[in-house]
């Protein structure tokens, strides 16, 4: 019986805490929106990211052609504004006679997924381990930190190449390879912040009140850290998309005929002299995407990190 009662108590307390939290959050959201509007570049970045996501989701409906099926007869046709263009192929065609515009739109799916998944999983693993290591210290921290040092000593690209040859090419393996080293940065970030936060009064207070460790970590400390994690995350997304391009350069990227920007840029490099668009246009798609993510991320950092505010 007692369990139920105390459970009830806890439940009502949790409800109360959550309601307060959500109120704070709603206010923060409104404030956040106001701040965002004050930063046109960040806003623009956000809008572009949203557009990309929408484009990726609706790819089958807005694409003029098939992303995989080409016609060799229309091979390497230039974009519409150049002489010799094939009507209906606005951005020209690639070496298999596939519509480049379609492939770029469909490529957004893969590239965004690569970015989101590799960063998302890295964040999840890095934050969880970082929080544990920073909070408990001891042998766990030692173990994880040394492992992180070890991974850091490998150059990322070499490591990814090794992983890809180890696992074999493919989308899942790509994500695994990128994540395997990607989490270290988040680990280091969260661990460092955790060490700093842990000494602060509110953590002490929570301990005195008798909160459990996991609750302190999850609901007291992490919300204070998550902002910098978020910012680093947005900044890493572009990096991951480019890593896919670099791996494609070596034939270890996304497998054909699936369109991915990195592979498209990489494959098209042989045609740079004769058909610049094959490589350049997907390259510009990456560029705008990464630019938008970074602008958005930078704006977020300005907004979320009070230390950097001008006023």
């Amino acid at each position, binding site marked *: 019986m007692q369990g139920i009662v105390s459970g009830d108590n806890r439940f009502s307390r949790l409800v109360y805490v959550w309601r307060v939290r959500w109120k704070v959050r709603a206010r923060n959201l409104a404030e956040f929106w106001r701040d965002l509007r004050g930063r*046109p*570049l960040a806003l*623009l970045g956000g809008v572009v990211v949203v557009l990309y996501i929408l484009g990726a989701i609706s790819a089958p409906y807005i694409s003029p052609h098939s992303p*995989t*099926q*080409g*016609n*060799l*007869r229309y*091979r*390497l046709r230039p974009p519409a504004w150049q002489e010799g263009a094939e009507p209906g192929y606005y951005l020209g065609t690639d*070496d*298999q*006679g596939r519509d480049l515009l379609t492939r770029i739109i469909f490529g957004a799916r893969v590239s965004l997924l690569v970015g989101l998944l590799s960063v998302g999983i890295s964040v999840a693993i890095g934050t969880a381990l970082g929080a544990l290591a920073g909070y408990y210290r001891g042998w766990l921290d030692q173990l994880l930190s040394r492992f992180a040092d070890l991974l850091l000593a490998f150059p990322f690209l070499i490591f990814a190449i090794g992983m890809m*040859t180890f696992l*074999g*090419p493919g989308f899942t393996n790509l994500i695994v390879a990128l994540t395997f080293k990607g989490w270290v940065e988040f680990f280091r970030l969260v661990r460092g912040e955790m060490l700093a936060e842990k000494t602060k009064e509110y953590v002490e207070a929570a301990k005195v009140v008798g909160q459990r460790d996991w609750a302190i970590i999850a609901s007291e400390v992490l919300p204070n850290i998550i902002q910098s994690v978020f910012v680093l995350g947005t900044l890493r997304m572009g990096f991951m998309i480019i890593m896919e391009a670099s791996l494609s350069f070596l*034939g270890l990227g996304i*497998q*054909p*005929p699936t369109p991915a920007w990195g592979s498209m840029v990489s*494959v098209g*490099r*042989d*045609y*740079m*002299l*004769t*058909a*610049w668009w094959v490589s*350049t246009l997907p390259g*510009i798609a990456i*560029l*705008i995407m990464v*630019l938008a993510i970074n*602008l958005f991320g930078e704006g977020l950092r300005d907004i979320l990190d009070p230390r950097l505010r001008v006023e």
Partner: protein
Amino acid sequence: MAVKNRMLLVLMSLVLMAAPLASCGTPTPEVVERQVVVTQIVQETVIVEGTPVMVEVTKVVEVEKQVVVTPTSLPARDVIIVGLSAAPVTLDPADHRTRNSETVIRNMFDGLVTRDQVSGVHLELAESLEWLDEQTLEVKLRQGVLFHDGVAMTADDVVFTFERIINENMIEYPEVHSSPRKGLIAPLESIDKIDDYTVKMNFSAPWPPAIQMLVHQQIVPKHYLEEVGTKGFIEHPIGTGPFKFLSATGLEQIVLERFDDYWGGAPDLEPVGPPCVRQVVFRVIPEASTRVAALLAGEVDIIQALPAELADTLAKTPGVQVGTAAGTQPKWMEMNVNQPPFDDVRVRQAMNYAVDKDLIVEAIYGGRAAALAGPLSPYNNYINTSLVPYPYDTEKALALLAEAGWIDTNSDGILDKDGISLAFTMDTLEEFRSLAEAVANQLRALGVDVGVRFWEYSVVKPMLDANERMAYLDDWGDSAFDPVGHFEAKWHGRVTGQTYGRGNFSGYNNARVNELTKLGEITPDPVVRQLIYDEAQQIVYDEAPAIFLIIPDETEAARADIVNWGPAADSRINLHDVCVAAQ
């Protein structure tokens, strides 16, 4: 916002500026054309008093036009820089298995025989070759040939060279190991010195392609190797070739210098004498686009492995010339004949009908390729001339598939049978990406759901060996222009632990083809051999264990003022005759 737009604009214009090409023009050298007779040594069996005797005949195989410069003044440049696609692994003729190693080595070393730019074999260091019987070859050596250190080449060097290859553990650096080139002359059992300029090679069995294969072995100096050892030798190799070693920077850049005391080279291959240029530089430029850019910028004079995409553009670019030669790397997509759907010969034939090889040749290779008519390269000496490539005929393909039960019943665009879609993954290597995607595309258009997957050879090889994969697109070198090395590897059934079927990734195993393959290997009589291989090719053609695709030409490019130059069929760059035209 404005800033961002401007940035993009700058970038775009940068890209657009870079897109069209410009190149400086070079005055065309004054040239004359003349005809060159290309001959080839062939063994023929002549019936003497009722007994077949093998003799060697020099046959005119081709009369070709060759461009030769009329020197009006001394060449302006006497250094030629060659852009290689990959680094040689060593300069020791006995210790490598890569084409580019051979490219560099053969400019420094001579073999007993050599090959012209097509496929003809000519005597080089050998003055004559004579089969004493089916398994014994007597080689008379040319006299007065000097190594780069001035010492004369004798039978001792030849014996040493071959013993170093066929005996175990002859190479002591960096650790003791055996020559990886043994496989290229496996039937050679021993070599005996008869006198200073005569050796006798003893084979374990009759080996018809022996002379073709001898092209790939170069003679090294016994006295020098014994003095400096392998380490000293690879640091400063010495041979009898037209160029002597000058320096190497980690094999990324190898500089050779004209050997003024060169004996002249194969008398059949004019011009004879010391090389034209003073120095040649081999520089490794792995990226194709960089190689082309370096050629356009005038940094290199000759580039190897020109991508087919760029050949047309470069051919039209002033200041640059493009050369092609018949290739030696035929490409197939092998189908697993032991698993459905490819266990049905009709499906395999349908696949052959479904691929428009001519379109691929035109679109992807710019016409610089040829369609395959069956299992052998059209340039092979034993090609079955009665075979023609499977025509592009989608109706026939569909009919054959329908006959085999594959019809699109649920009209999803994919053929199916018993509720199973006709689908498979085509494995291949990254280097065949364009071709693989084109083939997959065409099959998809027919209603076959084809995916492409790139592998590293080493990773996919065990799976192919186990016959686990459905389809594999790759090529198999044919640089000896003989079915041996090719037919038994590719179309003979797989025999564990033997060379038979080691490249057979389709699981194809036809008793008659196996029998014919083995017969062909030991039949010296070329006429009989032709009959044997004709039949074998016909069977493979009909049973179609692979889509017989294409064989691309060897395409190379050079600055316009490089003369006496042309790609060789086996992709070796022989710089002996190459000159720079006077300005």
